[in-house]
């Protein structure tokens, strides 16, 4: 299959456009995603593309008092995350397919009641009468000195909740294929990006129906001596660590989990059965993060395969500081991964 080189940001944008072209029920809403093009410019051009005609507008004719206007398929919202997620959930309950952008996933904390107590519960409480085809996407994790309130990796919080699906792609191709799968999914999906990935380039499959099913991990690097298990930007940290370990004669396999819920334990366990060693790497606070769940499962289910205790590398258990020096100290890098690999022996 042919492919095109593009950035992670462009891959997400292309997925949004292809799905909006395919299905009129798909629309996007969020803060400054239209006229302003999105804080990370992910939605650049969508307002112009989809809100040209007055019939594309929520106001008909456009409300004279709203100078910027509000498009029907690209909806600029006020800064009110609970309201945005709640209204998107309500619209999804009728069969529309909203894709909500959280300016950062840290702001999804405001909307936790709507996500956890409403969206995630609806299909079950109604015993299947109502589905919620909702996607909540946005950057999670530290960027560059955004300090303590804008740097959360909270995908593990969501992966704790039955009723949600949670994915965290690491490459442009995964981003496109998984976002399209998320939009076509009839369940609420948390789609975590990472600010550090947006500019990353990669080959993206040219096919408007190319989707990547959830619950399938990806072997990002084949190896035989140790399994580095990770997701999102940490995949690239682990790949860098693997390159350095190779210089020392340690051949690491990198498993890109990419789907936290559902979790592909089979691929993880097969890798551990082959290498007999595992280090789980995640950017979230080390204590209680999703990597702890993966580590616990490997420890319990792969006990006979393991030649060493399961290692873990996570973010420091502190609020993310502003100082670049301190911030970098918090985020796991390849040196931390290599140190853990050597520690478990």
């Amino acid at each position, binding site marked *: 299959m042919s492919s095109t080189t593009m950035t992670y940001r462009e891959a997400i944008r292309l997925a949004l456009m292809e799905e909006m072209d395919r299905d009129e029920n798909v629309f996007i809403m969020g803060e400054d995603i239209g006229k302003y093009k999105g804080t990370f410019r992910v939605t650049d051009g969508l307002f112009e593309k989809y809100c040209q005609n007055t019939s594309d507008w929520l106001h008909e004719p456009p409300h004279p008092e709203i100078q910027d206007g509000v498009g029907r398929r690209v909806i600029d919202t006020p800064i009110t995350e*609970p309201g945005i997620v709640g209204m998107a959930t309500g619209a999804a309950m009728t069969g529309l397919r909203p894709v909500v952008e959280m300016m950062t996933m840290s702001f999804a904390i405001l909307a936790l009641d709507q996500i956890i107590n*409403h969206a995630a519960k609806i299909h079950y409480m109604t*015993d299947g009468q109502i589905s919620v085809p909702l996607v909540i996407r946005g950057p999670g994790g530290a960027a560059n000195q955004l300090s303590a309130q804008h740097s959360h990796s909270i995908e593990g919080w969501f992966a704790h909740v039955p009723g949600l699906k949670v994915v965290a792609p690491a490459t442009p191709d995964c981003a496109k294929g998984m976002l399209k799968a998320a939009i076509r999914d009839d369940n609420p999906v948390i789609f975590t990006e990472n600010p550090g990935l947006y500019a990353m380039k990669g080959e993206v499959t040219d096919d408007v129906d190319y989707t990547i099913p959830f619950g399938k991990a990806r072997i990002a690097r084949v190896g035989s001596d140790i399994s580095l298990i990770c997701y999102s930007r940490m995949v690239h940290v682990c790949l860098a660590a693997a390159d350095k370990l190779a210089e020392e004669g340690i051949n690491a396999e990198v498993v890109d989990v990419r789907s936290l819920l559902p979790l592909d334990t089979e691929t993880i366990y097969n890798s551990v059965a082959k290498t007999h060693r595992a280090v789980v790497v995640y950017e979230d606070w080390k204590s209680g993060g999703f990597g702890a769940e993966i580590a616990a499962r490997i420890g319990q289910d792969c006990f006979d395969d393991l030649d060493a205790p399961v290692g873990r590398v996570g973010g420091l258990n502190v609020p993310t500081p502003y100082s670049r020096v301190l911030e970098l100290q918090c985020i796991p890098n390849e040196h931390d991964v290599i140190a853990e690999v050597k520690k478990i022996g």
Partner: protein
Amino acid sequence: MPKPATASDLVAPKEDLIRYHREMVYLRHFEEKSNFAYRQGKAGGYLHVYIGMEPLAVGWLNNIRKGYDYVITAYRDHGHALQLGSDPTATMAEIMGRSGGLSRGKGGSMHLYDIANQFYGGWGIVGGHTALAGGLALAAKYRKEDRVTLCYLGDGASNAGVFFETMNMCGLWDLPIIFIIENNLYAMGTALERHAADPELYKRGFPFKHDYERVDGHDMVTVLKDSKRIIDRCRETSKPCVVEAMTWRTVGHGAADNDRQLYRTKAEEDEMAKRDCLYLYEKYLEDNGVLTRAQMDQIDAEELEKAEKVYDDASESPHPEIEEVYSNVYTDMEPEKGH
């Protein structure tokens, strides 16, 4: 001796007025059976009945396009489900957590849903569902349909932050939604004056460019007139509206509220009993020659019998199978199993 009414004097055709009476009487008996189920241990958890507030379900929901307009409410939801056409036995079975329930026992009293009738529940987080309601109205506008969304909420929910956020967006985008604040004067056990800085809750709509007004919720005749006018206007203008309907729950907040005198006096209850909605409506029907006392007694007996049969039938419904615990967490996969 009042002047005999002519058809044009009546708020609705005579046969409709009689049907509304039947529906109010039935709802009251149904709710008394719900409370009975709780006392018998057949219903658990939280259970909130609609006794005293019947016109807000019976009156308003007889003026919408049933099965087309969207309806959503909080946890005091039995009346809305019945009024929209949910099978009463399935409704009672859900309250009892049985497999014959609307959600086969997964929702319970607070979480009744019936999508065939466009009844969207049934929600337990105070104020949380108002945002969902805004989304229903957004969907109607998105699809260019003339559906109206009716969102009921309590006076306690009118203080919730997400309600204000939702009103802002509904006003900003002119969404066809009516927020009906069922003001029964108490947020659980906290009196209106003790929970709202401005107890005139209809004013909540003013800063968000909604239509807004306070209406009576006791007098069924007034309720029928107001609800028709407001629903028709909302459909016509696609403009949101906040309605504060003054009402009164005769009973406690929930089935577990067994000491109402902690927050309201016996004298207050006696005074409000004079304005009981069923008493007022029956007086209207009698004064206008629609029904005689004997006919109403007959209706009361018939509806009580129906409610008792529903109670008995629901009690016969089996509990869910254990395997059901895993179904419908997702549309397309099962959750991981086991402890």
